[in-house]
């Protein structure tokens, strides 16, 4: 049997400094943005996201402060399991918008827990392979941008 958990070697893509910056609305800082990419060889239906959590400098972000944006649609984290007709492509960054009034300038320890089910690897009824797409990086906060 293949192992049920798999993890590919593209974890450097998951979070990057060029997708990490404070967001402004009418020049007021309201939160920060974190781009997310998939650590896998292919894209996945958005419904495959089973777990998505973010810690910054050891502090967990409450789920209700997060919006998940894929192209021009915005989702709550909890509705992602229903989104089987939205596709998170292998080259498409998703944006996590986090309304926490933003982060201090400088370097931050960003820790993303991101787990997907593999939609075609079955290990019995309702049991699918799990892809670990987590990543942790020390990232320099970029220049703030208007949302």
């Amino acid at each position, binding site marked *: *049997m*293949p*192992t049920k958990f798999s993890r590919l*070697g*593209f974890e*450097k*893509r998951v979070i990057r400094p060029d997708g990490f910056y404070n967001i402004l609305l009418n020049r007021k800082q309201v939160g920060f943005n974190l781009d997310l990419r998939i650590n896998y*060889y*292919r*894209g996945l*239906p958005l*419904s*495959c996201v089973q777990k998505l959590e973010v810690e910054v400098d050891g502090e967990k972000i409450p789920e209700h402060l997060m919006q998940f944006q894929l192209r021009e649609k915005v989702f709550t984290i909890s509705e992602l*399991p*229903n989104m*089987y007709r939205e*596709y998170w*492509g*292998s*080259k*498409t960054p998703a944006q996590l918008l986090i309304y926490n009034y933003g982060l201090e300038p400088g370097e931050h320890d960003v820790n993303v827990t991101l787990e997907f*089910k*593999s*939609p*075609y*690897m*079955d290990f019995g*009824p*309702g049991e*699918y392979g799990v892809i670990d797409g987590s990543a942790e990086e020390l990232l320099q906060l970029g220049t703030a941008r208007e949302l």
Partner: protein
Amino acid sequence: MKNNIDLGVSLYGFTQRYIEEDGYNFREMFEDLNKLGIRKFELVGAQMFQNYPNPTDEEINEVMELAEQYDVEPFSYGGYVDFGKLPDHRMNDDEIMDQVTYDLMTAHKLGCKYIRGFGIPNHLYERVAQMAEFYQVVVAYEIHAPQRPSDPDIQELITIFKKLQSPWVGFVPDFGCYIEKPNELHIQRYMGLGAKRENLQYIIDNRWNGFTEEQMTQKIEEMGGGLAEQMAVSEWFGFLSFAPADIEGFKTVLPYSKYFHGKFYHIGEDCVETTIPYEELLGLVVESGFNGTIMIEYEGHSFYLNDAVEQIGRHITMEQRILAD
């Protein structure tokens, strides 16, 4: 070559650069095909379309325009049935048929003559054959490791194909089914993780001497093996399995084979494949009277060596040498 067999390259072989580099896209892949002197390619929709299973017109047009510009040809479309994507149940037959139809629509738009089928249960091939005829695209079941052509479900599919007598369904045998021993790079990877070569060699030599996975894990522990050896056992008894090639099985699927996946992981400078019996397999393909395409599928990106063009080039040299004989 003395026969009517030609070579294509699956873009899947370019996975590492495609995934790692923002700027490595269809244009760059087609440039690489040009370098390799290859026209026909396979495209895996779930990998390279950002809107799968219904790519946008913009995505389709980009491929078509660049393909024309670089004089390359979409030959086959790598399909999937993501049967586990629904929140509450595994896809039923109608839902699976729907996915197959999406891939047919896309293959049709791309001008592909073949789909690599995946996840379609045997009993649906009759419905698939009708839809495939509508779209005039052949749907070919991929026989992929750890499956073997002698497996009962493959043999059942042969019976179904015999009955259907449809030119629109068949097989695409993947040569990865016939790996007879692990690649040296795999061995070195486990050694890098702390495994001892003699332990790994023991597993290889005794893989088919009656051990279950559990028994082998225990045996290797007794021999002093650690986590690295355990991983090797897990993978070699699993999706990196190897075994004496199922040549007799291979013969039974040949009459229904539409094209082939020329899978490989690594090939040395001498352009000799040491783990898969390509000479024997290609000999049987030629003997069967097959006229068509071997779609080369490089999977060595799993070693992250960023050597796809070099590796595929060597493999082409090998196949051409064998087919010229």
